[in-house]
């Protein structure tokens, strides 16, 4: 059996005095969308950054197609995975098409000009992310949802087989979040491996093939959303009385918003 596309095992990250990630594991294959969920400060984003090689590990390992991430640097790593930050910088004087062209840079030699194949890849990424009609607009004129889709286009121009998105929907309205969610699901259906760090459990349950729960720096559960996000786990990890309801194509999270966390624990 060949190695999975991405395999993180026993990841531990210490920054300064604080151990942010204690023992987190994650496996993703091509065509799969894995949602990483957990409370604020649990270490989800640190896990995503470690998987992408943006955060060095204290111990544990990250392997891309069986190769240790330590042996993949620069362009070689850039061709394995693309990382989509929660909020990228939005500089003035840059069109959407120029920004997406920056995403192509791992394929363009240091002293070479982009070829017509590169330009086609950039155009493909723009169209696939559904921002074709924004291509000539300045980045500074876009809405949050549009910017996030442009970020995904930048990542797609990288032509890597895996995307790691760190809370791409966190600051978006419902419609914009759903649009980004549909796009990411579509990309997984196209054969990309997608890691999605997300707060919205209903959204995660609706689009993910698998959900990994991070709590206090550890991966405490992984599997299909309906099995993993059960009532007891929501109470344990998020300290809330809530229940996930799934029917084909729709999900809902029923939350006792005003319930006392301690009472919920006793009553469940």
């Amino acid at each position, binding site marked *: 059996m060949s190695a999975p596309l991405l395999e993180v095992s026993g990841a531990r990250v210490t920054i300064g005095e604080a151990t942010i990630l204690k023992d987190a594991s994650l496996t993703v294959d091509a065509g799969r969308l894995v949602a990483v969920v957990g409370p604020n400060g649990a270490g989800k984003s640190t896990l995503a950054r470690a998987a992408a090689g943006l955060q060095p590990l204290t111990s544990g390992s990250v392997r891309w197609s069986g190769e240790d991430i330590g042996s993949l640097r620069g362009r070689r790593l850039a061709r394995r995975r693309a990382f989509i*930050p929660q909020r990228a*910088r939005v500089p003035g*004087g840059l069109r959407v098409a120029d*920004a997406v062209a920056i995403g192509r*840079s791992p394929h363009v030699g240091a002293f070479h000009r982009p070829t017509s194949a590169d330009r086609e890849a950039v155009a493909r990424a723009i169209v696939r992310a559904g921002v074709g009609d924004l291509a000539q607009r300045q980045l500074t004129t876009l809405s949050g949802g549009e910017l996030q889709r442009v970020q995904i286009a930048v990542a797609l121009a990288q032509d890597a087989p895996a995307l790691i998105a760190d809370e791409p929907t966190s600051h978006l309205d419902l419609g914009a979040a759903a649009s980004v969610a549909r796009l990411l699901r579509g990309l997984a259906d196209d054969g990309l491996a997608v890691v999605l760090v997300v707060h919205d459990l209903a959204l995660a349950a609706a689009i993910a093939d698998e959900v990994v729960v991070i709590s206090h720096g550890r991966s405490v559960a992984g599997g299909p959303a309906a099995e993993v996000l059960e009532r007891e786990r929501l109470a344990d990890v998020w300290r809330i009385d809530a229940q996930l309801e799934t029917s084909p194509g729709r999900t809902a999270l029923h939350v006792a918003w005003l319930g006392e966390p301690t009472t919920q624990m006793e009553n469940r």
Partner: protein
Amino acid sequence: MAALEETPRAAAEMLDPHQIVARPPGADLRRALVLVTAAAALVAAVVASLTLGAVHVPLRDVVDALTGQAEDGPLKQIVLQLRLPRTIDAILVGAALGTAGAVLQGALGNPLASPDVIGVTGGAGFGAVLILLVFPGAIALLPIGALVCGSLAAALVFAISWWGPDAGSIGKLLLAGIAVGSFFFAATTSIMVIYSDRVQSAVFWIAGGLSSEGWQSTRAVWPYFVVGFIAAIALMRPLDRLALGDDVAASLGARPRLVRLTACATAAVLAAAAASLAGLLGFLGLVTPHLVRLAGGDSSHTFVIPASALCGAAILLAGDTLARVVAAPVELPVGPFMVALGVPLFLWLLRKTTV
């Protein structure tokens, strides 16, 4: 419901990829216009700088002197020993400050970035004042003193900002730069207080201006300009990758902090070399890249860096020639003179735009 669904794959078949990616035709024209205008202004300024001054030298005599056909005499000497070195110095210094500003603003993602903020100006000022006031006998070491102290201040800023958690972050660099700069300015002021009877000789240098002292200083510092310009060219693509933030740059396989350090070191070398020839002309480094971006409507470094070099050279050379000619035979210091001309223009451009 079908209308709600996006059909990007169907759309992909309808849209021509080249049409999506291509720049609008006006955009390329605008960039070209900025470069051509700057180049033409530079050529005009070179002609003016070589012909105009306390003594008018006809263009034909200038050409003869430059091509070695002129007979020995005062005109040939004025062109080759006074005006040509000053013209070359102005081009080098203007290009260096424009480039340093463009590189720094790109590296720090901050429109306020200029050689002041990484300590270079403070350090170079200290080095120059130290030689001028404390060791006036070693006046020949002035350019080297400014260069060494300017680079030393920048090195100190990098060392401090690279220390401890969050090493090499923009915030740390800027704070360290302001602190180190303040330290050197305080040291400079202290020397001026102690040697207040000699301050007169340092005033012109601090105000910023070129001198007609021949080739000696240029000969001492030209390699630093060459190294700085080559590094700036190599940094154009890496700086573009920083435009969308460190995380995107890292995703693209770049090392954002290494790029930022290299860019700051490049700007430090250029700014210190510029200060060694022309004193403190910080305003040019701050403003030129903004002018270029506003006029060209493009902030990619493959445009902004060369255009800032060209514009910086043209502006400084034109400003220096004007400062020599306006009240001839009295020479106005070009630093304040350029600020007086440049600030209204800059503010006028600024009011119509966002930075």
